């Protein structure tokens, strides 16, 4: 007879793993990735490839030579995911060396300095984007318009729908908002703006232009129970209500549909705010976190210096996550009073 294994219960496991969750999110990103390749062509492919490769490299190198981990952590898929998300937050014509610096900051500073997977305070991809936005403001905000196929350098650049919204607020001119692409166009990623004449289209970050592709990803993640609805729905609802009220009060503020479908809101709400490590643990906490992100996003978009508020709103709330975890306990059994 074999020697019997002795261990405490439970003796069975669901079969879930870190890997299957991380790669699950990567699969959910595939529709958005395909759209980005179609819209932005070679540039998007190059940026995504360089970003993923450098994130994986830095994770491996730092794990092996600096942290001296016994078990390599690159295989868990989290570095690939960070690489994809970082790339999706950059314009497709950005110089590739900037991408590498972004990856180094995201993995090296934001993730590995705190101890690697599970220990980081901020979402590495978003912090990497914020770092690049401050360090290379020109390169990070020149948006190639969509539909340029394979021209990568010196392609036409254009304004994003968000920049147009900001301009409308600054000029106090609600009629400028008529130049926004229709809701349908924003949903499928055709963010053309009539400002730039017939046929030319407005741009955006690699992964953010096609809201529909991101919604497909969301449905996939919900179906596989990788994430729950709480955070994305809280963000969507808050943005819709808050921007709807603003729009009613003064039509120079864009309405809820435009707010929801433009910029990084979808990408952020579905893929960034739901990052396991940096979001609250309890469902109650997740709802509060989502509402706060939605609120901050509209505030920054409306009154802030940057046209885009999503990434900063998420980073700010990342900082509040430990506090939310501390005060937002799940409802204990027995707290519910007798029926």
């Amino acid at each position: 007879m074999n020697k019997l294994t002795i261990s405490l219960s439970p003796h069975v496991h669901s079969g879930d793993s870190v890997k299957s969750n991380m790669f699950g999110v990567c699969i959910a990103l595939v529709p958005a990735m395909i759209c980005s390749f179609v819209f932005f062509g070679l540039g998007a492919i190059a940026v995504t490839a360089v970003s993923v490769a450098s994130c994986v490299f830095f994770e491996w190198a730092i794990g092996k030579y600096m942290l001296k981990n016994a078990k390599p952590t690159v295989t868990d898929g989290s570095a690939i995911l960070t690489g994809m998300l970082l790339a999706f937050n950059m314009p497709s014509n950005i110089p590739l060396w900037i991408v590498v610096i972004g990856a180094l900051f995201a993995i090296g500073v934001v993730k590995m300095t705190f101890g690697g997977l599970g220990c980081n305070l901020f979402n590495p991809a978003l912090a990497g984007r914020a770092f690049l936005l401050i360090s290379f403001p020109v390169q990070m905000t020149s948006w190639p318009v969509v539909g340029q196929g394979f021209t990568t350098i010196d392609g036409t650049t254009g304004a994003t729908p968000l920049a147009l919204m900001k301009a409308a607020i600054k000029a106090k001119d609600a009629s400028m908002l008529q130049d926004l692409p229709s809701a349908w166009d924003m949903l499928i990623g055709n963010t053309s703006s009539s400002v730039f004449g017939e046929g030319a289209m407005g741009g955006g970050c690699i992964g953010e232009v096609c809201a529909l592709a991101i919604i497909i990803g969301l449905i996939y993640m919900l179906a596989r129970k990788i994430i729950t609805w709480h955070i994305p729905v809280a963000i969507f609802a808050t943005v819709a209500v808050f921007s709807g009220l603003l729009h009613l009060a003064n039509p120079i503020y864009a309405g809820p549909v435009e707010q929801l479908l433009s910029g990084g809101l979808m990408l952020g709400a579905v893929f960034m705010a739901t990052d396991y490590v940096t979001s609250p643990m309890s469902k109650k906490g997740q709802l509060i976190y989502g509402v706060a992100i939605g609120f901050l996003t509209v505030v920054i978009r409306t009154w802030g210096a940057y046209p885009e508020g999503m990434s900063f709103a998420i980073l700010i709330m990342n900082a509040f996550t430990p506090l939310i975890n501390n005060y937002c306990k799940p409802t204990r059994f027995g707290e519910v009073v007798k029926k």
Partner: protein
Amino acid sequence: MKTFRIGGVHPAENKLSAAQPIKVAELPKVAVFPLGQHIGAPAKAIVQKGDKVKVGQMIAEAGGFVSAPIFSSVSGTVAKVDTIIEASGYAKPAIFINVEGDEWMESIDRTDTLVTLNDRLELTDKEIIDKIKNAGVVGMGGACFPCHVKLMPPPGSKPEWVIINAVECEPYLTADHRLMLEHADEILVGVTLLMKAVNVKKGYIAIENNKPDAIALMTEKAKAYPEIEVVPLKVKYPQGGEKQLIDAVVGRQVPAPPALPVSVGAIIQNVGTAFAVYQAVMKNKPLFERIVTVTGKSLKQPSNFLTRMGTPMSQLIDACGGLPEDTGKVIGGGPMMGKALLNTDVPICKGSSGVLIMNDKEASRAEADPCIRCGKCVSACPMGLEPYLLSACTDQQMWDRLEKEDITSCIECGSCQFTCPSHRPLLDYIRLGKSTVMGIIRSRNAK
């Protein structure tokens, strides 16, 4: 369909032996009776080496109020009073009896005639409780809490319902399922006895809907008892937990310890206990045999046995085709809360609902990854606790914090560890933290 409100998981059910009728297991050559096979004080041996005993004869008396006597399941000669490694992994005192023949006490009614409460109208609540107490009946679901104690709630509490736990939410186990299919009438009489014992007018039999045949049969038979209702429940682990079951059936939540289920009006008994109560009260038959599921994916013939207590598990495994080559772990009970056994000589006790054989591959745990703070353990916890935090605070020995985080409410169901994508040994840590904190609380109260 009803179920409990907070958390829960759904492990693969693997009820391999559900279609196997109950077989009578062979008598052992030597039967072993550990003295501490229930919660509370161990029983005290009242036989000595060389004594002759019959089937159903008391061999150890209750060691206190929260305790239960033990009866011989075999006839023969007491060989010794010694120690044996039992399911807990510790050596505990036990009575060893060499089996000779099969001679029963004459007081036991061995016929199959169904005796209902209408045949015995003279029975009072006190008599019922006394008979249960003197027959050594304990909770048959695995916790082995002496049955009579639950039927004598503290003064001031008002029982409203008897809820029969026929959920059998542990994967693999089918003992309760088979018992319902083959002894439905006796179980129903047992329920009426329990209801009479605590003077309540309503009884529920809660069954998960992965046992549609048992639900159908019990519902049909229960038509003769208007005060008993069969409640089908959605399949979810740990629905068989006392608190979860009350929440699922009547929608009330028992407050944190030390509150008892009766504080919300519920008396919970396992379906096997209801059967044992019937036998004790109506047939004068003390608790000395039970249904045991012997199962596992590599086992040749997973089966359900009517087994005399004291039978070594190895004998049941042999009756199922022997211990498979690739055995990696032998578990007493189900895979979620059962105990891994040191060897297969462990005897069947009052709480042995099953023996589960796992192969090498199933027996090994995956290596733990860092916590990715996904919150799945928090969603899974049926008590509304935060397992990731309890485990981390235990690692850091933050006992005060653990007490504030309600670690003592943990029911050790294992849902957190089952669901953790990082394969972290959450419950291992939480058990350590819980027992330490309980020790601190006890010594503080003692001052």
